[in-house]
């Protein structure tokens, strides 16, 4: 057993406490599974490349100007590739490696327009982070796109049911990733 520091608990990193109780009051997103039919975004592009699946609800709520995307990804190479694609697409991009860094980013920096969220992360996994984000009054409306190699139907349904706006199965070409983020943000 390692004697190193224990992984942070998202419960201990209460976003309300970190960000303060004020801020826009938004209703949590409805848990609406959209697994088939209308609402699929990027599916055609991914299939053309031989990838599995992407699901998303179009939001059309983006602000004018340079939108901010937070990449929550523990693997450096995967994060670097996503950040390169997004930066070249005109986004301001931040990166967090786990739930603790995510909470710190949201507290000290900026609430992004979109969070690209890996599932297998050290400590708190991406699904649990998503459920906490959706329950938070200031963060519930932030677009979240799951970004993971876990692409079983069960995983996809879980992500969408928890309120994800998209579900990207890795690996994915940078160009396609950018197209999907643009689509989710209505750009």
């Amino acid at each position: 057993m390692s004697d190193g520091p224990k992984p942070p608990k998202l419960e201990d990193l209460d976003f309300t406490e970190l960000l303060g109780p004020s801020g826009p009051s938004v209703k949590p997103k409805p848990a609406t599974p959209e697994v088939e039919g209308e609402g699929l975004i990027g599916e055609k592009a991914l299939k053309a490349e031989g990838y599995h699946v992407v699901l998303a609800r179009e939001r059309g709520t983006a602000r004018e100007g340079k939108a901010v995307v937070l990449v929550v990804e523990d693997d450096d190479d995967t994060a670097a590739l996503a950040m390169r694609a997004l930066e070249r697409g005109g986004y301001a991009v931040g990166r967090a490696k786990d739930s603790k860094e995510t909470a710190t980013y949201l507290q000290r920096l900026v609430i992004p327009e979109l969070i690209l969220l890996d599932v297998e992360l050290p400590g708190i996994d991406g699904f649990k982070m998503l459920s906490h984000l959706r329950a938070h009054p200031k963060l519930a409306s932030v677009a979240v796109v799951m970004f993971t190699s876990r692409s079983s139907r069960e995983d996809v349904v879980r992500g969408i049911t928890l309120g994800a706006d998209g579900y990207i199965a890795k690996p994915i070409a940078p160009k396609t990733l950018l197209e999907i983020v643009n689509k989710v943000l209505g750009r």
Partner: protein
Amino acid sequence: MPTPRPAIVVKVDPEIADMVPRFLENRSRDVARLREALGRADAEAVRAIGHTLNGVGGGYGFPAISEFGARIEEAGAAQRTDTAAGVVDELADYLERVQVEPGEPS
């Protein structure tokens, strides 16, 4: 004297070509980490490294690395460390032979 094995040429997107050397160096480190994990029969560590390989390879234009990763992940999840070790050897061979050229990924 053994015949040299042929090179495997991979064309990578020029927009990310500058990132590829580091990417490949890290995959060689993954081979070392995998062999360490196999040496201590840590199937979960093998699975996790395979999972990362699976997720990252294709994005850089190396779908073969994703395929190796998926097989390593599957073997690790099933506690089949012997199977994983064979795939790790295949991955190491691939990394020794791969040569990168800028161009349109196939």
